[in-house]
């Protein structure tokens, strides 16, 4: 590089020639196609995807019919619930369950997030890598696995206790409240950690340090500064998790129902699947009651935090100083993490792996070892269908959410378009809808319209369900990555000759790749692990892996089930690796 003094640089010769022509007027400009056009298009799309099924569900709750035919107006469905005491135990069970799950999940998630982000706990990088793993493993899978170990009749642990120690009574019984809360908490810890750790990482350490300088000890600083500062974030996350607790389906189905514990979603499912004829009216009315309950909770929450939106915070580059913990505490926390990882991943996955190599559940000896299950699964139509469908449906939905979420994020973050707020709200709204309710709403909504809009029984309706289910987290993830792109980067492209379409292609696309992959992975995982939506919407040929899992579980075919579960795990694992690879390449 030469400096001014020597000044050997000459003005390039090309400055004497005439400049290149202005860029041609782009066709998007000639058509007058502005980004605001997409705001309206998106509003329409979200209205069809989210709002419409919701409205149909509401309307349907006042009619006697069933999906495909509304029938006559009636208030009877609500009378079933509101004029009897039937609602009370369901509500009470749901609240007890949601509270317990939240309390346990929050305690451990806070401990882990704080320890990983703010202290010198050993192997913090490994912990940060592994704690989110359980979230990506379907509850159905670990749940079934735990039931193989701990059901009171032939749970392996109980069998072993009887064989080795002669204990006749079951030593462990995962049916009922204990198993339900135990297993549901495992996944919750992982999810809440994912939601919270970003806040801890990006929080300004100087407040804590100031308090310590002023003489507070480290732990006082933690309780008087760190946690209170994060209270709004913690409250928001807690409320969302609590609502999800009210809506749980898989866990109560596996653990609660055999012990007589029913929650909202199970009751709705029971009305549809175990009654003849299915009680659509009662199920729909109960769905609406559940939605109303969650809306009231959300309204209270909004008033408290002043309507502040909850967003997923991703860590900034800034690494605050880490707190030095005494040795005993450091290792206690690490020990807790090890126990957690054993319970949530190692033991259930290990059990599934072992079981996949034996023809009959529980009879494990060297001479019974076989690959039959693995061979059978590839001949099994249901499993093959399930695998293909899960991949196709989840990938399609995930790709759609990346695009929709990206557009919503763009409009919200970069424009002042009045629709921005409503689009964001619409993308968030499905968070409050339990899967089973969403499934029921979609069933009503898409069985109603005439051909060719009647999507009843098609794959498309399941894909729509996955899109709706993935929208909240997907949009939040896209939005936060859009937040990180400085507006000057795309403005610079515009000024120097790129139409907005070219700016999207050459600047936004590459810059959003990482966020896009992260979103894709999250939505794919959410869709792939979901049972409730396909359970109500599948017909012969459109079943997913989770539906196949449940079917085999109910039929007691635990060997094939184990193989399917492992295939599903492998899929999730591949995705996580993909995510890491993209991140690693950018770093």
């Amino acid at each position: 590089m030469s400096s001014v003094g020597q000044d050997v640089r000459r003005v390039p010769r090309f400055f004497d020639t005439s400049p290149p022509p202005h860029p041609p007027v782009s066709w998007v400009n000639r058509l007058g196609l502005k980004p605001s056009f997409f705001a309206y298009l998106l509003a329409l799309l979200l209205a069809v995807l989210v709002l419409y099924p919701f409205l149909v569900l509401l309307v349907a709750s006042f009619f006697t019919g069933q999906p495909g035919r509304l029938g006559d107006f009636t208030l009877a469905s609500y009378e079933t619930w509101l004029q009897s005491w039937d609602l009370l135990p369901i509500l009470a069970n749901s609240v007890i369950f949601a509270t317990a799950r939240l309390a346990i999940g929050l305690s451990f998630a806070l401990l882990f997030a704080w320890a990983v982000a703010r202290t010198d706990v050993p192997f913090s990088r490994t912990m940060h890598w592994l704690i989110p793993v359980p979230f990506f493993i379907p509850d159905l899978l670990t749940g079934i696995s735990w039931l193989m170990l701990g059901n009171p009749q032939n749970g392996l642990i109980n069998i072993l206790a009887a064989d080795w120690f002669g204990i006749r009574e079951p030593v462990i019984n995962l049916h009922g409240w204990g198993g339900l809360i135990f297993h549901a908490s495992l996944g919750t810890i992982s999810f809440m950690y994912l939601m919270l750790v970003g806040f801890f990482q990006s929080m300004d350490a100087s407040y804590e340090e100031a308090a310590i300088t002023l003489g507070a000890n480290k732990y006082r600083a933690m309780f008087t500064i760190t946690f209170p500062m994060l209270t709004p974030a913690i409250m928001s996350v807690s409320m969302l998790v609590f609502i999800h607790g009210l809506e749980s389906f898989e866990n109560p189905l596996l653990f609660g129902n055999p012990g007589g514990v029913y929650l909202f979603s199970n009751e709705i499912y029971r009305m549809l699947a175990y009654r003849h004829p299915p009680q659509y009216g009662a199920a729909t009315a109960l769905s609406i009651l559940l939605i109303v309950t969650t809306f009231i909770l959300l309204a209270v929450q909004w008033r408290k935090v002043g309507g502040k939106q909850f967003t997923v915070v991703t860590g900034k580059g800034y690494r605050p100083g880490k707190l030095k913990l005494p040795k005993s505490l450091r290792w206690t926390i690490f020990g807790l993490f090890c126990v957690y990882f054993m319970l949530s991943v190692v033991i259930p996955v290990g059990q599934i792996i072992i079981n996949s190599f034996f023809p009959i559940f529980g009879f494990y000896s060297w001479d019974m070892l076989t690959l039959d299950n693995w061979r059978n699964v590839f001949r099994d139509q249901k499993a093959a269908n399930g695998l293909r469908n899960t991949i196709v449906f989840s990938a399609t939905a995930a790709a759609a959410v990346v695009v929709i979420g990206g557009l919503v994020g763009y409009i919200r973050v970069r424009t002042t378009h009045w629709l921005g707020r409503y689009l964001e709200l619409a993308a968030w709204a499905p968070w409050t809808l339990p899967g089973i309710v969403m499934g029921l709403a979609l069933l009503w909504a898409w069985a109603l319209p005439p051909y060719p809009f009647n999507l009843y029984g098609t794959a498309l309706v399941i894909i729509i369900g996955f899109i709706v289910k993935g929208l909240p987290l997907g949009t939040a993830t896209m939005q936060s990555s859009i937040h990180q792109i400085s507006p000057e980067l795309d403005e610079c492209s515009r000024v120097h000759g790129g139409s907005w379409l070219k700016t999207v292609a050459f600047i936004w696309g590459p810059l959003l790749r990482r966020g896009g992959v992260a979103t894709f992975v999250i939505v794919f995982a959410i869709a792939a692990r979901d049972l409730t939506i396909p359970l109500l919407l599948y017909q012969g040929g459109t079943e997913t892996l989770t539906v196949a899992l449940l079917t085999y579980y109910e039929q007691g075919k635990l060997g094939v089930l184990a193989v399917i579960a492992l295939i599903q795990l492998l899929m999730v694992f591949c995705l996580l690796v993909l995510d890491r690879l993209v991140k690693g390449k950018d770093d």
Partner: protein
Amino acid sequence: MPEINLVGLTKKFGAFTAVHPSDLSAQNGEMLTLLGPSGCGKTTTLRMVAGLEQPTAGSIRIGARTIYDSSQDIDVPSENRGLGMVFQSYAIWPHMTVAENVAYPLRMRRVPKAQITEKVRDVLDLVGMAGFEEKSATKLSGGQQQRVALARALVFQPEILLLDEPLSNLDAKLREHMRFELRMMQQRVGLTALFVTHDQEEALTLSDRLVVMNQGRIEQIGTPEDIYERPATRFVAEFIGKGNMIEIASVDRAGGDARFDLPTFDSAVCIALPAKNVRGAGLQQNACLFIRPEKIMMGADGERGGQNAIHLPGRVSGRAYSGDHHEYLVAVNSQTSLKVKVAGGPRHEVDSKVTLAIPHSEMVLYA
């Protein structure tokens, strides 16, 4: 290189007016600087020119081409305005190499590949970044990013170059260096440039003319000498350089001259200024007298500093040495102290009595 004209350009954000109707024009090959405190609307003005912000009213012309006119409903999209711009954060695209960054405007203009390579090389040579073509943009230092941003804004021979505080993210030394380099580059290429800064020293050294803005209004347009020597308003006088501002209780404007009293420790000095030294609407109250510190002469007690000057007795209350000159703070009465800048001459101790001589021609009354 064409000139640029802004007529009645206005920007409102809701009820708040960020830029009041303003007229501006930069001549051919001129470096015109928008100078003002932060929040005065400089960036907004520049962004309206670039097409990144839609004006509420007014028009923008580049040469004979109208690129924006609210009354005729003309709004040429940003990408077709043919402007080069250097952003405050440089906006170097992190996913591209240096060469790809610089080539982008040419690619958008469908320039043939071979020409692109050549032009990119030449322009990188011009900004002193030859050989950096394949370097990843994320591995550049601040100064290097700045050069690349400049190369990218120059490579397609834009009609106008826009620069929004391009030097503010550099450290002091580099900033000074780049200042001269930027000026040299602009003059050599003969580019018309609009430059935005809040740093008055930068503005004074860089510009052919500058525009001082305050709260969305243009206070004064002129050459650096005009602005520094003859500030048109009180705001400009206070904003540019270090100045002494003395509040004057009342002014007598009978007979064209402005007469007023300046109280001293002993009595009052009566000053009469000709009308040409008076700026503003001519209020009788709330006036103030402006004097640059380097225009004040300082002598021992009772010393006279020549004709056409008023003499004020005072006492040195503070002194600072800054290499090539002394800066004194001289109290002329119990409320008022004047800054005085003296190069050479005898040193005056703190608390010594001195006499200040202020030439009439150097006093300006803003009334």
